[in-house]
């Protein structure tokens, strides 16, 4: 009897840890899903850039032409990156699928289900009159203990899979870090070329009255009105460019935090506070700014 009590105490103590690991595993898998979805959003954004670039270059060709009345309609070649984007989209879709399956492993109802099943098993056993009923201590504790054991098995599996996801996300980080520099160059090319091209357009092409109609700025001098409009336009292009590059940065940081979350959960002694802080940091990084 003493041994059973000791066993129950040990099991009950470990149950708190198991519940926490299952809970953290569940939260990590939600963040993993969100980070994967963010990656897919980024590749959608990148796939839109080819047409944006074409449209911008066509506009520049019209605006910088000395005699637009005699020019043919420009048709700049689309810079197609679909072959480069496709394998990356597939890789993040695979990661997203992994997290969707991982969600099932972190389901907190496994313990409850086993508790119900064991209760049903006991009931069936006790219903057989010819068999001696289970001792009361056993029959009251057994369903709960079964739940705790199941949770411990589940928590152990969650730790093992977090170790695998730690290694897997590390590979995604290495490749993203290498790609990010190239995607930054790609975005710089598209938006800097547009901005610089627009800067070289002659001020004579602008109608200050038209600008004033749509502006609340207090300038009266024609040249100032035009220059202020052009400054604003330039700033907006740079802002648009930086917003895209910031999304790349934030995604990279979120991926790194996610990797650390997996690393921490996989440890034998998980620092719960660290995990919670990292999960919160991922949430902030993925917020639309």
């Amino acid at each position: 009897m003493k041994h059973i009590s000791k066993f129950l105490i040990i099991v009950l103590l470990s149950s708190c840890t198991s519940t926490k690991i299952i809970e953290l595993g569940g939260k990590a898998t939600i963040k993993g899903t969100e980070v994967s979805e963010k990656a897919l959003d980024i590749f959608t954004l990148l796939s839109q850039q080819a047409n944006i670039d074409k449209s911008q270059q066509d506009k520049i060709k019209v605006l910088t032409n000395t005699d637009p009345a005699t020019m043919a309609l420009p048709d700049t070649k689309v810079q197609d990156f679909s072959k480069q984007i496709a394998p990356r989209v597939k890789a993040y879709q695979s990661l997203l699928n992994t997290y969707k399956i991982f969600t099932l492993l972190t389901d907190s109802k496994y313990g409850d289900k086993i508790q119900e099943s064991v209760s049903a098993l006991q009931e069936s056993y006790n219903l057989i009159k010819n068999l001696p009923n289970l001792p009361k201590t056993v029959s009251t504790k057994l369903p709960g203990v079964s739940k705790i054991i199941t949770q411990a098995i589940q928590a152990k599996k969650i730790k093992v899979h977090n170790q695998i996801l730690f290694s897997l996300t590390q590979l995604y980080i290495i490749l993203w870090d290498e790609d990010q520099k190239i995607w930054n160059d790609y975005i710089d090319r598209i938006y800097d070329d547009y901005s610089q091209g627009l800067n070289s357009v002659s001020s004579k092409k602008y109608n200050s009255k038209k600008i004033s109609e749509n502006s609340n700025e207090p300038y009266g001098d024609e040249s100032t009105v035009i220059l202020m409009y052009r400054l604003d336009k330039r700033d907006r292009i740079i802002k648009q460019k930086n917003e895209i590059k910031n999304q790349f940065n934030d995604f990279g940081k979120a991926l790194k935090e996610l990797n650390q979350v997996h690393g921490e959960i996989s440890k034998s002694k998980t620092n719960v506070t660290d995990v919670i802080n990292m999960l919160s940091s991922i949430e902030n990084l993925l917020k639309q700014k």
Partner: protein
Amino acid sequence: MEEQLKLTLSQAIGEFNSNRAAILLLAHKAGGQAAVIKVEQEYDALRDAYFEILRRQLDKNNHLYERLITAANSETEKLKASINQLNNINDITNLATAVINLVGRSLTVLGI
């Protein structure tokens, strides 16, 4: 080498853009729209070359992404196996309940 070429191309594109209207005005004076088109084609060729370098740099990692897909899919399969194992605990208990119910019924029928 590749990075150096990228940098040189980038500088050339930037220089052209900064003086684009003035360069095209000169071209137009020298040879009309035909000369403008020719200059713009040269500029487009510089951009093509720049983007081609980016594509090649990205292509270098394409086969690694294929490996990532395989690794992620393999982890998905392992996860499914773990989920099945957890479900099996429940299934075994349910099966045991069914067996005990059957034993109970047999005992009742046999009047033991």
